[in-house]
């Protein structure tokens, strides 16, 4: 009996802990974002973070996009050939990438490449007292460290995903048309006919939402990391895991809304 009670006790405590962390994350992030319009204006730091997060992720986004498009062409061709509708390949690739794979895979790559770096960097700033030093030099660390990174991730991810989509569809075209022999006219025409503005909106709404989610999770976990070496290591892992799971969950929710 006591074992059952203590099990419920542990479950309850961990649930309460989760809720209180969620509340803490919400209040820290919203307080930080509230500093956006205040002086001193942090525009320069937002641009610096956009550069760090975005430019550094270009290669990995391009690579992932290319291979996603190429695999989609192979798999799509195999499936469509069974129904004799290879001409639909262009539409299939474009819809899959724009609506789903571009945002999700792009966000995952950004988490792995830039999200982990954000958490580790902020965690190390905490360990080495740099956050306290900013505070003592009368510079609000939430305005200087957290806010620019959340804004930058939110702005940069849609751009990266646009690039992902473009490269993915281009690579799909190469494999589909040049390698598998699909008619190029049909490929492009079907793509134009079947992809609507609504599909593109779905894609970029997801991109903005995922960028924001990565920014909030990775800055929060880094800022609140236990100030030890293990603490920062754990925080980095946790940030990547939580962001990835969060992206997939949010993806389901957004898809069900915007289908």
């Amino acid at each position, binding site marked *: 009996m006591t074992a059952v009670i203590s099990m419920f006790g542990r479950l309850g405590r961990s649930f309460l802990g989760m809720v209180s962390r969620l509340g803490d994350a919400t209040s820290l992030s919203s307080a930080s974002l509230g500093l956006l319009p205040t002086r001193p204006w942090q525009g320069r730091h937002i641009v610096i973070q956009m550069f760090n997060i975005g430019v550094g992720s270009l290669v990995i986004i391009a690579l992932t996009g290319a291979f996603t498009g190429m695999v989609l062409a192979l798999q799509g061709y195999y499936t469509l050939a069974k129904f004799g509708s290879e001409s639909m390949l262009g539409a299939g690739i474009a819809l899959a990438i724009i609506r789903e794979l571009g945002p999700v895979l792009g966000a995952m790559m950004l988490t792995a490449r830039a999200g982990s770096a954000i958490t580790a960097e902020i965690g190390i700033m905490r360990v*080495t007292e740099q956050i306290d030093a900013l505070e*003592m*030099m009368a510079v609000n660390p939430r305005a200087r460290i957290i806010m620019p990174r959340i804004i930058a991730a939110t702005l940069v991810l849609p751009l990266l995903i646009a690039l992902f989509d473009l490269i993915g569809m281009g690579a799909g075209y190469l494999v589909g048309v040049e390698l598998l022999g699909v008619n190029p006219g049909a490929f492009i025409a079907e793509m134009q006919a079947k992809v609507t503005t609504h599909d593109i909106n779905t894609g970029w709404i997801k991109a903005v939402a995922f960028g924001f989610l990565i920014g909030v999770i990775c800055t929060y976990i880094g800022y609140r990391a236990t100030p030890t070496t293990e603490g920062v290591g754990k925080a980095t892992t946790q940030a990547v895991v939580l962001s990835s799971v969060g992206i997939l969950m949010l993806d389901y929710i957004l898809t069900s809304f915007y289908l």
Partner: protein
Amino acid sequence: MIRCKALTKIFGDAAALNSVDIHVRAHKTTVIMGGSGSGKTTLLRLIAGLDKPTSGEIYYGDEDFVHMSRRRLYELRQSMGMVFQYSALLNSMNVYDNVAFTLHEHSDLDEDIIHTIITMKLEQVGLRGMEHLMPSELSGGMAKRVALARAMAMDPEIIFFDEPTSGLDPISAGVITSLIHDLRIKSHHTSVVVTHDVDAGLRIADHVVLLWQGKIIAEGTADDIRHSEDARVRQFIEGRPDGPIPFSRSSTTYVDDLLHKPGTVRIEP
């Protein structure tokens, strides 16, 4: 300049500071000494406003420091400097930008003038010509000196030092100690130094506060402390391992633990 009344800070169940009264006098060096876990760093963080006390009051002049608005706190901080235990230089910037950081943030001075100020500050700590180095290229002692130059950049009224000599070789530690002393006399600011380095602490102190287990056990000039009759003070300044401050932190007796006497050994269920 700073007065603290009945300052208490509780972490979890343990009181890191227990009703401490302290008075930091203007234009003097106040040294807070104590062993590890005595609450001295906690006290410094409270006085610097990096943490809030659980209870008690802090006054800067006549101003209530604990319930101050963030805007006013940041205004006050422009006349404060702090040298952190691990220097805490911003590692994305070189020495020049680190020292110039507060001037770039809070003044609209011409870059030429800032350059002149930084050259003067770096000369005072003996590092002129090192402007282009990154923090990762500095030794511990040099990083501390850059941190000191940074803390002085805005000509503050008060500078806080957290363990300024810990982790440094004897020569670097000596350099830092003399710098703290000489610069205080030259620029007439107030210093608050937290340290467990007895020799350095007593050498530079105008006023010494000795903490043990979150309470002040002795207070006075360096000579008062040196000639104190209190057994705990004597043990601390002589560095004896055992005495009124016990070597063993265990609360049960050793023999009872070895004999598994009921009630002494905690066995987790």
